[in-house]
């Protein structure tokens, strides 16, 4: 009724103070970027200096190596996270799930699978709203396979994992992780689309007619996008910092104390069974990327092979028991089994592939 008036009024309230400060915000961002860069370049030296100079630990000892590792990695990962989460936050302010749904509706199946997997990276998504989202997609006529491509890619290809891989192993590994994660999402979506799974969705999902479609997002100002991105940084870092510190501490311990090559025997290239084992152990475990990757780094450093470690990580992040339990409300067991099965096989194939080619 008075909808227009409400909107105008609401934006007027929002705009007042924000318009004034957009220049200040941009200046702040540029200044912080410069400070970030200067500090980031000094981190390794600083960590060495604190470990061997201030704390007076001897070089080459187990404790010294572990402490230096810890003091270097914690600030490094935190700084990378702030930067990348902020950037991703800005990008995400352009992609709401509503918009993603509109883009995907009416796309052909194969193209839809590819798009859905890509949009899974940039669309903000929390696994607790997986079910309403699933129904929202199905209801607007998006094929079930395409919906799955999105649901698989959204948690698996996640920005925290990308940052950590990039920071710890370089951009190549991050790129491999992202592209294989996308491939698994696309292929699984495509396979589920071929299998006529429509009847494996609980009936109530089809009976629901969504009463009103959510209001169309009003376009945000740049100032609001910056606020949104900064809020994301605070949210995510506020949530993951204990895991990161704990993870890096475990990593530092392994780094300093576990002998070189010890992991090679049980997680190395020659142990073919290590890949399925890693996936079987990883699938029911749920941890966010932040907690798992520093451990993974330490395993790699001691001779575990990249394929095995990637497979372990993907199964921990990509298949999670809590999400499966939530999805069970809307999916029949057979579809759940197909979903978990195909993703598991996909992850194992990635593991084997990298053990062979790297």
């Amino acid at each position, binding site marked *: 009724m008075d909808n227009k008036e*409400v909107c105008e009024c609401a934006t007027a309230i929002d705009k007042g103070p924000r318009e004034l400060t957009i220049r200040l915000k941009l200046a702040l961002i540029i200044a912080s970027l410069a400070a970030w860069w200067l500090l980031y370049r000094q981190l390794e030296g600083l960590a060495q200096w604190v470990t061997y100079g201030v704390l007076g630990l001897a070089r080459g000892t187990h404790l010294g190596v572990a402490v230096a590792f810890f003091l270097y990695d914690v600030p490094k990962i935190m700084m990378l996270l702030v930067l990348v989460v902020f950037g991703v936050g800005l990008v995400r302010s352009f992609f709401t799930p509503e918009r993603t749904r509109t883009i995907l509706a009416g796309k052909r199946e194969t193209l839809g699978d590819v798009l859905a997997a890509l949009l899974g990276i940039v669309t903000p998504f929390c696994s607790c709203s997986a079910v309403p989202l699933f*129904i929202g997609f199905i209801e607007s006529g998006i094929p079930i396979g395409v919906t799955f491509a999105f649901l698989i890619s959204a948690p698996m290809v996640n920005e925290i994992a990308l940052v950590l891989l990039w920071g710890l192993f370089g951009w190549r590994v991050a790129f491999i992780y992202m592209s294989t994660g996308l491939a698994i999402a696309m292929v699984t979506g495509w396979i589920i689309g071929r299998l006529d799974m429509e009847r494996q969705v609980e009936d109530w999902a089809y009976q629901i007619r969504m009463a009103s479609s959510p209001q169309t997002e009003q376009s945000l100002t740049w100032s609001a996008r910056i606020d949104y991105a900064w809020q994301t940084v605070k949210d995510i870092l506020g949530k993951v910092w204990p895991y990161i510190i704990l993870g890096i501490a475990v990593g530092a311990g392994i780094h300093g104390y576990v002998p070189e090559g010890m992991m090679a025997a049980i997680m190395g290239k020659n142990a073919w069974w290590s890949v399925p084992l890693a996936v079987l152990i990883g699938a029911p475990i749920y941890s966010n990327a932040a907690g798992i990757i520093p451990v993974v780094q330490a395993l790699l450093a001691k001779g575990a092979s990249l394929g095995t470690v990637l497979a372990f990580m993907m199964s921990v992040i990509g298949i999670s028991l809590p999400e499966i339990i939530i999805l069970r409300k809307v999916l029949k067991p057979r579809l759940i089994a197909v979903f978990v099965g195909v993703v598991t096989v996909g992850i194992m194939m990635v593991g084997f592939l990298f053990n062979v080619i790297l």
Partner: protein
Amino acid sequence: MKIKVLGPGCPKCEQTAKIVQEAVAASGVAAEVEKVTDIMEIAKHGIFVTPGIIIDNEVKSTGKVPTKEEILAWLQTGGQP
């Protein structure tokens, strides 16, 4: 005025409910706040990204925790027919 906060109980939904209650208390508007946690109910309301806020059958916000100022603005303007 009837306010519904829709969400299956994730941290953001709890946060949203709390902010809504604070805003209602601060505004002095006579409003009834109801939490909807059943996933079927949420879907029926046309919300497919939680948390969602519905004021008098109108979807005001989805997929984010709104600020107290935003809610206050909705409360002030949404009250009149």
